[in-house]
C-alpha cells in the first residue's frame, strides 16, 4: 500500500481497573477501506472502536487521523470543538441500537437533516430535498419523511440511522454491530445497502462485529481480537480461509455453515 493511512492507532493500551481492555493494539485504516474487527464479546472490540473515535482516552498510545489536506492530528489531543466538528461532518458513528443515535421525537426528515443544519445549512428547501434523496437511497418511502421514528420498524430505524450518518458524506464511519438485533432477511438487505453505499461514496469504515459472515460479506481486511489483543490481521478471505492463530481457527470453525 503506497497510499498514506487515514487512521492509525499505535501502541494502544487501556485498563478498566484490573481488567485489560486493550493491550498494545496497532491498527491502520486506509481511505475507502472497510476494516472488520471481530472477536467474541468482551474481547475489547467496542472499546477499540471508542478509542479510535476519540470517545475514550487510552492509558497510552496514540491515534492519528489524516485530514484531506494531509495534516495529521492526534485524535486525543484535539480540542473538544474540533473533535465535535469532525464527529458531525467528516466522521460518523452507527450504533447497534439506532435509538441511541436518532432523536425519537423528531421526524425522519429532521433526523436526516440535523447534521446538515449543525454544519450550517440554512435553506429549508435544500435540507428537505437532501433528506428525501437520502431516504430514497436507504429505501424508505418518501411519504414517511414527516413520520416519527417510533412508527418505524427495527430495520427501517437502522436504515434511517445510516441515512442520518451519511448525509454529510463522511470520510470515515465507525459501525458498532450495525446488523445486530435484526432478523436474518432484514440483515441481508441492510448489508447489501451498506456495501453499495460505502463503495459508491468511498467511505472508510471500521466495523465491529461478532458475526464472521458479516465481516466476510463487507470487509476488505479483518482484525481478530482476543482479550484486548489483535491476534491476527490480514485480508478477509485470507484470514477466514486460512486462519493461522488457534483462536481464529476456533472462531472460523465455530460458524455454522448453511
Amino acid at each position, binding site marked *: 500500500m503506497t497510499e498514506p493511512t487515514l487512521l492509525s492507532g499505535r501502541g494502544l493500551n487501556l485498563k478498566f481497573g484490573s481488567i485489560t481492555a486493550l493491550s498494545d493494539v496497532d491498527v491502520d485504516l486506509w481511505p475507502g477501506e472497510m476494516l472488520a474487527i471481530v472477536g467474541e464479546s468482551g474481547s475489547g472490540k467496542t472499546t477499540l472502536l471508542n478509542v479510535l473515535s476519540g470517545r475514550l482516552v487510552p492509558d497510552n498510545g496514540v491515534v492519528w487521523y489524516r485530514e484531506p489536506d494531509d495534516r495529521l492530528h492526534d485524535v486525543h489531543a484535539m480540542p*473538544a*470543538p474540533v473533535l*465535535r466538528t469532525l464527529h*458531525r461532518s467528516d466522521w460518523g458513528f452507527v450504533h447497534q441500537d439506532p435509538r441511541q443515535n436518532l*432523536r425519537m421525537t*423528531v*421526524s425522519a*426528515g*429532521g433526523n436526516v*437533516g*440535523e*447534521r446538515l*443544519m*449543525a*454544519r450550517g445549512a*440554512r*435553506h*429549508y*428547501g435544500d*435540507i*428537505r430535498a437532501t433528506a428525501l434523496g437520502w431516504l430514497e437511497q436507504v429505501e424508505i418511502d418518501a411519504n414517511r*419523511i*414527516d413520520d416519527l421514528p417510533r412508527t418505524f420498524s427495527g430495520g427501517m430505524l437502522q436504515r434511517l440511522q445510516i441515512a442520518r450518518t451519511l448525509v454529510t458524506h463522511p470520510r470515515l464511519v465507525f459501525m458498532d454491530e450495525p446488523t445486530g438485533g435484526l432478523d436474518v432477511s432484514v440483515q441481508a438487505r441492510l448489508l447489501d445497502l451498506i456495501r453499495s453505499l460505502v463503495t459508491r461514496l468511498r467511505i472508510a469504515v471500521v466495523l465491529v462485529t461478532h458475526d464472521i459472515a458479516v465481516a466476510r460479506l463487507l470487509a476488505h481486511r479483518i482484525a481478530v481480537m482476543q482479550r484486548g489483543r489483535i491476534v491476527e490481521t490480514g485480508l478477509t478471505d485470507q484470514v477466514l480461509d486460512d486462519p493461522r492463530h488457534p483462536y481464529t481457527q476456533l472462531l472460523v470453525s465455530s460458524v455454522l455453515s448453511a
Partner: protein
Amino acid sequence: MKGYNFAYLDEQTKRMIRRGLLKAVAIPGHQVPFGSREMPLPYGWGTGGIQVTASILGSDDVLKVIDQGADDTTNAVSIRRFFARTAGVATTTATAEATVIQTRHRIPEKQLREDQIIVYQVPQPEPLFRLESSRVETKRMHGLSDYGLMHVKLYEDISRFGQISISYDYPVMVNERYLMSPSPIPAFDNPKMDMMPALQLFGAGREKRIYAIPPWTRVKSLDFDDHPFRTINASHPCGLCGATDSYLDEVVVDNHGGRLFVCSDTDHCAERRAAGHVGADGFREAAE
C-alpha cells in the same frame, strides 16, 4: 424605608449581582450563574428582574415597571410600589422619562435610548431546555456553539405547520455567538432587540442566571433562508388609538362575543390618544 437597606437588597448581594452583570455584558448572551436571593414575592413574579433592578438602581433613577406592556397590572404596580418604598426612587409610567424599565413579556413600543436600561424578567433562561433536558449537555452545546438542534426544532415546525410556529420566546443569536432566550416577549418584539441603543439585562431568579445584551449589539432571530423570520401583525388597528403598528391585546368586552383590540403598551396608547389619535372603539366610547 426604616430597617431596610436602599433598594431592599444588602450591599454584598448587590455587589455579587453587579459582578455577574459585568461578566454578562462582557460576553453578550452568555448565561452567568448568580446566587439568587429569596425575595418577598413568589418565583415567576419577577424575582430575577427585581434583583437586577435593585442592584443597578441609584437614588436619582426614574423607574418604570410594565407587565405585558401595561403599567397598571398587579405585577407592575406591586414592583413599582416596592421600589418606591424601599429605595424612594421616582417612578413613572412614561417610557421616555424612565431611566430603568423593568419588564415582563414586552418591550415598549417607543424606541429606547442610550441612557436607558431595560431589565427583563426571565422564567427560563435556557433556550434549549425543551429540546435537551440535561444542563450539562446544553452547557457543552453553548460552549461549542453547537446549535443544530435548535434549527431541527424550526425544521419540524415548518414541516408540520408550514411555518415556524413560535410566537413568543423566539430564540435569537446574540453577537453571532450565543443562542439566547429573549424571555417570553412576543416574536413581534424581537427586531427591537437588534442594535438597541439601551442596555438590556436579563434576570432569572428561580434558575439563578443573569445574561445581557450590551447596547448596539447584533441580535438575530433564527430562521431559514427560504423561510425568513417575520413578525405577525394583528390584522386590526388598535380600537382606542387607531395604531396599526403596535402589538395588540384582544379583550373580551361583553357576553355576546364582543371583542376589542387594544395596544398592549398602555403608555404608548395613552400618549397617542393624548395627541389626538382615536380608534374605531374610541369614538363609540366618546359617544356613550
